[in-house]
């Protein structure tokens, strides 16, 4: 049976394997789904193995998994540069400045000091030295080998173990304290390039002659950072070390284990936080004279509300992704209750907006409404632009430099509503081209002010909530939510972002057949995130790489401070 399965297309293979585990009914269903998908996973050109800079959250999650909750991980490194819609895509291009490395070192020292202090050593270090005043090779080896494997995301080589243990010993002798020496070796490990960078390596693919695939440890890391936003745990590393991860059955077992883990929530929170560009919350503030109830707590809670909603709907309840934009289910906190004009709640509480409420779907949550607005007023244009770019993966061109603002600047004009103001854009042919694809959606959200509060009128004038999206007209925000829900670009954007996020770099034009395949299977599977994650994680493309493009190796490989050569940004718009 296994040989038959191995000859089938990946999606069919996955489905059959899944069916074998779940029984004959599931097998039949899987075959039907595979049949709907219609074709095997198309081949991709692939990209070279990547060298990705770890993000703050990935570093924190990894350390938290290794050392537990009692170690304080208060650190924040500079953000990556958003590339092709995702911060994570910037990780494969980001460099580390001297200033950044200094921050990494300070964070590493803080963590290492805690791990070896008297409050933690008894349960974080698996042995006790014979004499605390001097080096202890055996105990240092036990600790550094175990922790080093998890931090490096692979087993340490014998020479690496010797190096770290030697460092711990030398430092212990120097300062006359075993634990301090151990902490200094751990500190060095925490800023190792193989810890701060997620290093991928390729190897010949025995199943496909002439092709390369990620080696087992690299695949383990790619899967783990994709699904958990953290390094692989002991279980995954064992599967990599044994070779199990490189077999279809073993990989499926590991992926299913990861999908069933509570850590999946962390992984998907990180993904949606990135896709929705919630890093904008880090600097969001409103004019307190206009929106006095919009505070720093509101900012944090608005971000949290949408992430909680997304995780609950898509991961916990495994609902259709598109329903995120029409659901009335969410969570409310005390500070948000005031803005939503709801009775006070003691803490975070599940909440269902009633059927007659204008709040329907993510677009009507304060997160979307407030971030994509001005500090003192709403902005149909910003909201429409965000909808296009973040949720539909479309690119709105920047405004031309020679815009004629004369109509808007007419000092005699008196525009009561935003609709009247933005209508001016549409009178100018230069502006109209772009504003037509932004404003009509944003105007449907005009019942919500710049802080996301409901309003029926603006400056005494009633608000017209009508709008359109790609030719589909609607009378109010419920119509916008439904139009967005039904837009084919909505799920295909998620698929593109998800694949890009998981594989660690922007998609290329040659990936279009693969994305189409993923779109088809996502639709056949009812737009369920779990299934999409599984399809991506088990696909051949996910683990396929090309050979590294090696340049000439410098005669002297010592860095001399010469600035890196300029690299090209890739900006793709597949939709």
């Amino acid at each position, binding site marked *: 049976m296994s040989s038959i399965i191995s000859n089938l297309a990946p999606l069919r293979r996955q489905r059959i394997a899944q069916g074998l585990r779940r029984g004959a009914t599931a097998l039949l269903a899987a075959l039907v789904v595979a049949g709907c998908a219609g074709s095997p996973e198309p081949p991709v050109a692939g990209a070279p193995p990547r060298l990705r800079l770890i993000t703050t959250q990935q570093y924190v999650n990894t350390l938290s998994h290794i050392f537990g909750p009692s170690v304080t991980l208060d650190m924040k490194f500079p953000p990556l540069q958003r590339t092709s819609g995702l911060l994570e895509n*910037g990780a494969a291009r980001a460099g580390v400045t001297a*200033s950044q*490395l200094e921050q990494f070192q300070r964070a590493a020292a803080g963590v290492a000091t805690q791990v070896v202090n008297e409050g933690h050593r008894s349960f974080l270090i698996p042995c006790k030295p014979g004499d605390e005043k001097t080096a202890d090779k055996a105990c240092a080896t036990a600790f550094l080998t175990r922790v080093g494997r998890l931090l490096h995301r692979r087993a340490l080589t014998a020479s690496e173990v010797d190096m770290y243990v030697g460092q711990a010993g030398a430092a212990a002798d120097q300062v006359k304290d075993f634990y301090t020496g151990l902490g200094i070796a751990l500190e060095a490990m925490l800023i190792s390039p193989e810890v701060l960078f997620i290093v991928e390596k390729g190897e010949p693919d025995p199943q496909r002659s002439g092709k390369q695939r990620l080696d087992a440890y690299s695949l383990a890391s790619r899967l783990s950072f994709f699904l958990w936003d953290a390094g692989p745990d002991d279980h995954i590393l064992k599967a990599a070390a044994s070779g199990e991860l490189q077999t279809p059955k073993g990989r499926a077992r590991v992926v299913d284990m990861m999908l069933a883990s509570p850590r999946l929530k962390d992984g998907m929170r990180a993904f949606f936080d990135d896709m929705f560009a919630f890093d904008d919350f880090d600097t969001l503030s409103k004019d307190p004279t206009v929106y006095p109830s919009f505070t720093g707590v509101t900012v944090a809670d608005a971000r949290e509300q949408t992430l909680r909603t997304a995780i609950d709907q898509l991961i916990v309840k495994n609902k259709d992704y598109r329903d995120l934009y029409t659901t009335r289910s969410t969570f409310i906190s005390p500070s948000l209750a005031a803005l939503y004009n709801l009775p006070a709640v003691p803490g975070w509480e599940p909440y269902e907006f009633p059927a007659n409420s204008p709040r329907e779907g993510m677009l009507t949550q304060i997160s979307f409404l407030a971030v994509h607005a001005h500090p003192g007023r709403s902005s149909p244009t910003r909201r429409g632009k965000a909808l296009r770019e973040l949720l539909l993966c479309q690119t709105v061109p920047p405004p031309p430099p020679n815009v004629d603002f004369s109509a*808007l600047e007419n000092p005699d004009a008196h525009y009561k509503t935003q609709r009247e103001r933005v209508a001016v854009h549409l009178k100018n042919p230069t502006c109209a081209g772009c504003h037509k694809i932004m404003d009509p959606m944003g105007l449907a959200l005009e019942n919500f002010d710049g802080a996301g509060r409901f309003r029926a009128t603006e400056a005494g004038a009633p608000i017209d909530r009508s709008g359109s999206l790609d030719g589909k007209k609607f009378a109010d925000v419920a119509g916008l939510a439904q139009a967005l829900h039904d837009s084919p670009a909505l799920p295909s954007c998620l698929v593109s972002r998800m694949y890009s996020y998981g594989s660690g770099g922007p998609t290329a034009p040659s990936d279009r057949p693969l994305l189409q395949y993923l779109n088809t299977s996502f639709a056949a599977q009812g737009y369920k995130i779990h299934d999409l994650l599984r399809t991506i994680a088990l696909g051949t493309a996910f683990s396929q790489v090309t050979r590294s493009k090696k340049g000439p190796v410098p005669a002297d490989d*010592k*860095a001399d401070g010469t600035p890196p050569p300029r690299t090209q940004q890739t900006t793709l718009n597949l939709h």
Partner: protein
Amino acid sequence: MSKLSRRRVLRGMLNGSAVTVALPFLNCFLNSNGTALASGAALPVRYGTWGWGLGMNSGIFVPKKLGAGYDLPEEIAMLAPVREHINLITNTQAFRDNYQNLCHYTGWVISRTGSAPKDNKDIPGETIDVTIANQIGRSTRFKSLTATATGDVRSTYSYDNVNTPNAPEWSPLQFYTRLFGPEFPDPNATTFTPDPHVMARRSVLSGVMGQTKGLMREAGAEDRARLDQYFTGLRHLEQQFQQRLEKPQPIAACHRVQAIDKDPPMGMDADAVALRHKMMTDLLVMAVACDQTRVFNMAYSNASAVTIKPGYEKPHHTDTHEEPVDQKVGYQPNASWFTRRAMESWGYFVDAFAKIKEGDGTLLDNVFICATTDHGYARVHSLDGMPQFTAGRAGGRVKTGLHIDAANTAGTRLGYTALRVMGVDTPSWGVNSNNTSKELGELLA
């Protein structure tokens, strides 16, 4: 002591238990008149940048009179106290060549890199502060320091390369801790305790460097360049550790600033920005005075500044495009209000350096600061008529108190002048139409 190296003495001490060494403030650490470091070297000349967004209104910004004693129109009237410390260069131009005029981007990128960007993700080379830091910043605790008043870690005009921005310090509390926290090597401390942990930390870096070299041998060309940059960072870290093992030379101008125990409120209203700018400036100035760095950058705002005027619905950038020109006064009143707030902070920045006594003069006498923006007239995204400032006398190499008309020549002349003033030997600076080998000769002493 001169025959026996300081490092050897300290290493000897560290072989035993940690000891505290009393090193009194001796006359031998200063030269006779306070104009040079104890080693006899002249006081260092430092370089800085200051950035603001959205240009100005030429009718009320550009002085009528050229040269010394120039008038201060209403939009820069607040610069009166520092007029003699600065130069104002007006009527400069940024050439976009075949590329688009990328709104609020092309202008400042040309000013800082000498080259026009091809798109709004492009940084076509290292920024000028990085070039100068590579020349003069390698011996200090920090190669350069970058700060912003916006509270946004993304607000920077400093890039090592397109993929590596120099993220700014955005939190006064964190900036204080980094500069003057427990690791601050107070040059005027009466005692010095070499920390044996630091020597151990320095030692283990060699292993990390070895790992990096190993990775570099296996990496592709682009990744190798990134690892090379990381390796340079390790070298700098090693140097920082080494410096902490050596008693720094006393510096009379250096004083520990008042401790900051919490950050000011977040927010982009002009008062909040001004307060943050003041706090960051005070820290930055003392870091320079204490010779913690010789290159520094301050961003008052992003190019598309989102500073707000409380109670007024349009932030600065939006306002420049949507506010009608008041026909009575001939400009956009609120847009000018924002520019005036920026100029107040520029004045504060300059004055903060001027207040620090150093040698026979002030710290400002030994710095050269270049201030640039993104447009001339932001309302129409103009790349001509762009204003620039300099501040400081660069150790006597630069004259101040002048208004210079650049006659619509390349704004990169200021960058080229800065490179020459700071000792970077280059025949020209800039790419294509922005290339220049012509200094702003009027301001050279």
